[in-house]
């Protein structure tokens, strides 16, 4: 069953059209990667789906409910979480306070601060630390935890590995694999093509706001993805 779908999504920054006619859909427990060069419109696409940026056209459906007209906080309350680029934790608040804020969606579900700490004991030790003082990897873990606290059905993550050490990236993806196994749909924006190939179920390549390639991870390779990132669509199933 389709959990998250975005149809005919278009979004603009003033006169500049950043996303044009993008279609996506994810079923429960599926991991879809969006890759592409800088400025391809990946972040704008995620922000439009989350409601942080108002789409100029398109329909967002979550668990079969049309949420296109809802503002960001109502989209979050219907079960759609976004882990933004740079994590955007509340730097002056503690790890616990950041996690508790994730529960603002008022959705029922398995997640609580204790449940998060059970799964990542490293975070439990940082309970009273200010989020602004954490390393990038720790911040990413808190950001993912904060998203889970809202008991979402789908999580979107922007630039997961940006600015993280290789070990921290490894840890973040291990966490995401567990999240997927719980049946949460994951929409991930990633710069690292090899990482995307190794982890994704579906892949979408964007260039200049359009989808240039759609593929199943096992049926494509890095060269094809790279070519599509620069707009070469020949031979691809776009």
């Amino acid at each position, binding site marked *: 069953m389709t959990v998250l779908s975005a149809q005919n999504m278009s979004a603009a920054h003033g006169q500049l059209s950043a996303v044009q006619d993008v279609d996506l859909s994810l079923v429960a427990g599926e991991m879809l990667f969006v890759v592409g060069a800088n400025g391809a419109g990946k972040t704008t696409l995620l922000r439009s789906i989350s409601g942080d940026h108002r789409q100029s056209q398109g329909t967002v459906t979550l668990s079969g409910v049309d949420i296109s007209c809802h503002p960001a906080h109502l989209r979050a309350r219907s079960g759609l979480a976004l882990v933004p680029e740079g994590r955007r934790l*509340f730097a002056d608040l503690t790890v616990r306070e950041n996690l508790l804020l994730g529960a603002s969606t008022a959705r029922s579900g398995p997640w609580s601060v204790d449940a998060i700490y059970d799964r990542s004991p490293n975070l439990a030790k940082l309970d009273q630390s200010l989020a602004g003082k954490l390393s990038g990897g720790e911040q990413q873990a808190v950001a993912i935890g904060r998203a889970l606290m809202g008991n979402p059905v789908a999580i979107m993550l922007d630039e997961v590995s940006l600015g993280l050490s290789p070990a921290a990236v490894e840890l973040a993806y291990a966490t995401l694999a567990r999240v997927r196994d719980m049946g949460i749909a994951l929409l991930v924006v990633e710069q690292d093509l090899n990482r995307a190939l190794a982890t994704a179920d579906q892949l979408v390549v964007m260039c200049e706001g359009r989808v240039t390639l759609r593929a199943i991870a096992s049926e494509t390779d890095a060269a094809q993805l790279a070519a599509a990132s620069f707009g070469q669509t020949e031979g691809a199933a776009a």
Partner: protein
Amino acid sequence: MTGLILNSVLLGGYYAILAVGLAFMYSVMKIINLAHGALIIFAAYGLHLLGAMDVPLYLSIALVGALMFGLGMGLHAAILSRASSGGALLPLLATFGLSILIDNLLFQVFGADNRSLAPLVGDLSWASFELPGNVFVGQLSLYILLAAIVIIAALEAVMRFTTLGRRIQATSQDRATASLLGINTARTAAIATGIALTTGVFAAAALGLRSAWAPYSGAAQLLFAFEVVVIGGVGSLWRVLVGAMVLAIAQSIGAAIHPQGFLIGGHLAFLMAVFFRLPTWRAAFAPIARKGVSA
């Protein structure tokens, strides 16, 4: 000397209660509410009206408090949220305009008479405690200082330990991310405005009980509150208390030096605080400060 210090501290309590709403509004919404003084005077008239109808003062404070809370939420929805989306200058202009509107409306309705709430509390307005050493402390001033401490402590507790407080902090630090977490940021900011205006009712009661006011008294209250916030600096609301004490002590020292020196002493403390906060001045003072430590 003891008397001077004690009275400065008590006066500082009044300034703190005056400034706490302004500081709260600035720290959570980055809005400098220039209508703060006018709104305090507005609330004072509310207390006065209810007092004239024989409503007990504590009940009047609760009723006017509820009114100001609602007014604050409405004010945010109607004016502040729009103004603050248009840059830093717009809220200043909007609240300045609002203060003129309130001042003149009050003048139109209530006339130019001075009013006071002192008659409502009988001899409390001049009663005093005698301390050893023949020092007298005004009871009312002491209660005002205590009220200031309680209000600041209560606001700090709300901000730290409640869900609402966390949401207000999140909204203030990063509004976009807060709404991505499911927080209704418009409503949260409106509630914060309501809280800020509600604290103004206590300021209105303090003002009315210790002295008198007229429709245009708001500007003077705003000035003191503004000086307190600048001297104390932003961050914890406890800084309001520090700023208020510094202002009151500076004023008292000014008055001790010269009969006209009361206000000038306060303004000098304010200017020194402003200069101290300028990065270029800080840099200039830094070597001197270091030399002072090593010597």
